[in-house]
């Protein structure tokens, strides 16, 4: 197994799948301005996916492009977190999912900009700028909704309780990570989880939301073991390339 390829696919798939989820809001946003904001975010993520998967294809050396990787793999070959494939639900659910992910992504990129791999460092530096805005946007919405009306508070609290089980996977690490850290390709991720908890707790406190005490963990995405939702995403994502191979427009 090529650890660097595997790692890049994990990062790329996170961006690809959450980008696709956000694109599902196009034309369905609660207000015009937020509709545009979410599709903007979506495009940022698809751009990140393009960068990571393109580099993954180069590292693999089998001639696969970013499009081949995005559109022509089977579900078990996707390495994204379970969190990012969870359904959009209501707007609050989407915002909570985004917030939990953005908080992780910002801390991750702040480390990856110090990667000895120049391409990873460059993609991380570009993505970090976007991610800071994403986190600001999702945090402010979590606070507005959490500290909003009784109904909005209850809805985001329910979303938080539902999604919390997928957050331990943010810090999943296996032989892939170990090898890259050992080889000095990526910096150590020690302390990432505690930093994430501190940053998330701060916003949740301001939002008057309760940190779930449910410690049940739901993992598997990094090994290709997904929830039933990914298949539906891929059906839509891959339809054109499967039905009309090589189609361009």
């Amino acid at each position, binding site marked *: 197994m090529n650890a660097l390829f595997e790692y890049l696919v994990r990062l790329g798939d996170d961006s690809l799948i959450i980008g696709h989820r956000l694109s599902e809001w196009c034309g369905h946003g609660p*207000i015009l*301005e937020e509709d545009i904001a979410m599709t903007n975010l979506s495009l940022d993520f698809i751009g990140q996916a393009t960068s990571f998967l393109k580099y993954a294809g180069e590292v693999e050396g089998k001639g696969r492009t970013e499009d081949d990787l995005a559109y022509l793999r089977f579900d078990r070959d996707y390495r994204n977190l379970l969190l990012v494939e969870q359904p959009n639900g209501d707007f609050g659910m989407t915002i909570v999912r985004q917030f939990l992910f953005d908080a992780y992504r910002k801390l991750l990129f702040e480390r990856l900009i110090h990667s000895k791999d120049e391409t990873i460092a460059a993609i991380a530096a570009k993505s970090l700028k976007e991610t800071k805005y994403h986190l600001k946007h999702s945090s402010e919405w979590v606070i507005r909704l959490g500290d909003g009306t009784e109904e909005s508070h209850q809805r985001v609290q329910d979303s938080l309780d539902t999604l919390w089980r997928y957050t331990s996977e943010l810090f999943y690490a296996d032989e892939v990570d170990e090898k890259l850290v050992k080889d000095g390709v990526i910096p150590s991720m020690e302390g990432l989880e505690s930093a994430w908890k501190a940053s998330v707790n701060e916003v949740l406190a301001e939002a008057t939301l309760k940190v779930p005490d449910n410690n049940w963990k739901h993992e598997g995405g990094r090994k290709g073991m997904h929830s039933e939702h990914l298949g539906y995403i891929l059906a839509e994502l891959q339809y054109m390339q499967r039905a009309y191979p090589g189609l361009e427009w």
Partner: protein
Amino acid sequence: MANKEWPLWEVFIRSKQGLNHKHVGSLRAADADMAIENARDVYTRRSEGVSIWVVASNNVFASNPGDADSLYEPSDSKIYRHPTFYEVPDGIEHM
């Protein structure tokens, strides 16, 4: 409550340093912070700007279109107010 709309904001964008903020449109937002964020997403996504102002639309006071004759027409006949009688030296741009 169900039908209550967020207030309207006027958006001004500075396209680059040294130029004035220019009115580009309006949007709805619950408060000024959200208005700035929405303006960022709605009006600067194609690199249109480096700075944003938002002003609550109800703070904008406008001249009355019905007064146009008395307000603006008198200046039409006063061509001497335009500095068009100077010769612009070579090499001066953006005049």
